[in-house]
């Protein structure tokens, strides 16, 4: 191919792209709901669920209450505010999103015997597994969650404290 031909091809390609862009601009403007040229908010894309590679062991409510522990509440923020174990730390768990690194770093810095995770359902166990997979040592979960801890005599707070 000669330079003359390459130049000709390049000019034609530019013309095609410019023409297509002009049509695209026109059609988009005529749409009932035109697409913004720059998206105002990020697209909600689907990401893989975080996989837990390690499994946290269970701890009985009585054993948890008798040791120096930090309770980690896996329930959503509103439920946590309504009632939670005294001085518990709220980490609302969503199986679709990994726990933030800052939260993991904060939990890692705690000087406690166990990190005891609880919830109202399987989320407590799932969060405990994820924290263990993130490299946190001595993570435990309480089967039966908040209710089991209450029945074992745990102090409950009902204010927005503890976080």
């Amino acid at each position, binding site marked *: 191919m000669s330079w003359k031909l390459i130049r000709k*091809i*390049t000019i*034609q390609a530019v013309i*095609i792209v410019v023409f297509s862009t002009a049509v*695209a601009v026109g059609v988009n403007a005529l749409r009932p709901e035109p697409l913004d*040229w720059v*998206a105002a908010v990020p*697209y909600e894309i689907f990401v893989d669920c975080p996989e837990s590679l390690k499994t946290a062991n269970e701890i009985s409510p009585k054993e948890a209450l008798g040791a120096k522990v930090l309770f980690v509440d896996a329930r959503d923020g509103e439920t946590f505010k309504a009632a939670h174990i005294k001085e518990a730390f709220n980490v609302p768990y969503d199986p679709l999103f990994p726990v933030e690194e800052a939260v993991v770093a904060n939990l890692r810095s705690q000087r406690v015997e166990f990190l005891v995770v609880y919830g109202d359902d399987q989320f407590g166990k799932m969060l405990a597994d994820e924290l263990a997979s993130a490299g946190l040592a001595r993570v435990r979960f309480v089967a039966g969650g908040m209710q089991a801890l209450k029945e074992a005599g745990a102090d409950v707070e009902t204010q927005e404290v503890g976080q």
Partner: protein
Amino acid sequence: MTEKTRTILAAVSVPMRLYMGVVFIMASLYKIYEPYLFGLSVATYQMAPLELINIFAIVLPWVELFVGIAFIVGFWTRANGALIVAMMLMFLVALSWALSHDLQMSCGCFASQETADEIGIHTIFRDLAWLVLALFPTVFDDGRFGLDGLLNKRNLKKVTS
């Protein structure tokens, strides 16, 4: 290269042009119809900045459509072939990126993320095959079996008369 060889190469490239033209027209239709879903497909690659996603989603389908039509009719054959080659290279880079990052997604080539098959190494091989099918006419087809050929003949007649 002799005139006879050029004619043979141009003839061989005609089915390639028709096939790739249809592929690009088919690929453009859902994107033109559903630009938001195509934007979502682009975003799923997690490659392009947010500022570029919608521009890409609005413009690219029309480039695909016009390039596909022009490639079939043999108008500005080499320029359109070059654009198809460029787009195929871009798609290959994006697919390789997605696969290297273990993204479980569809390629977004022909349908939205919800309905299309998941990408894999087979998608890379398919796009490589398409790249070859686009590259051949770009290099060897001077458009003599298309609109380019007709326009050249007309221009030649004008000059000689």
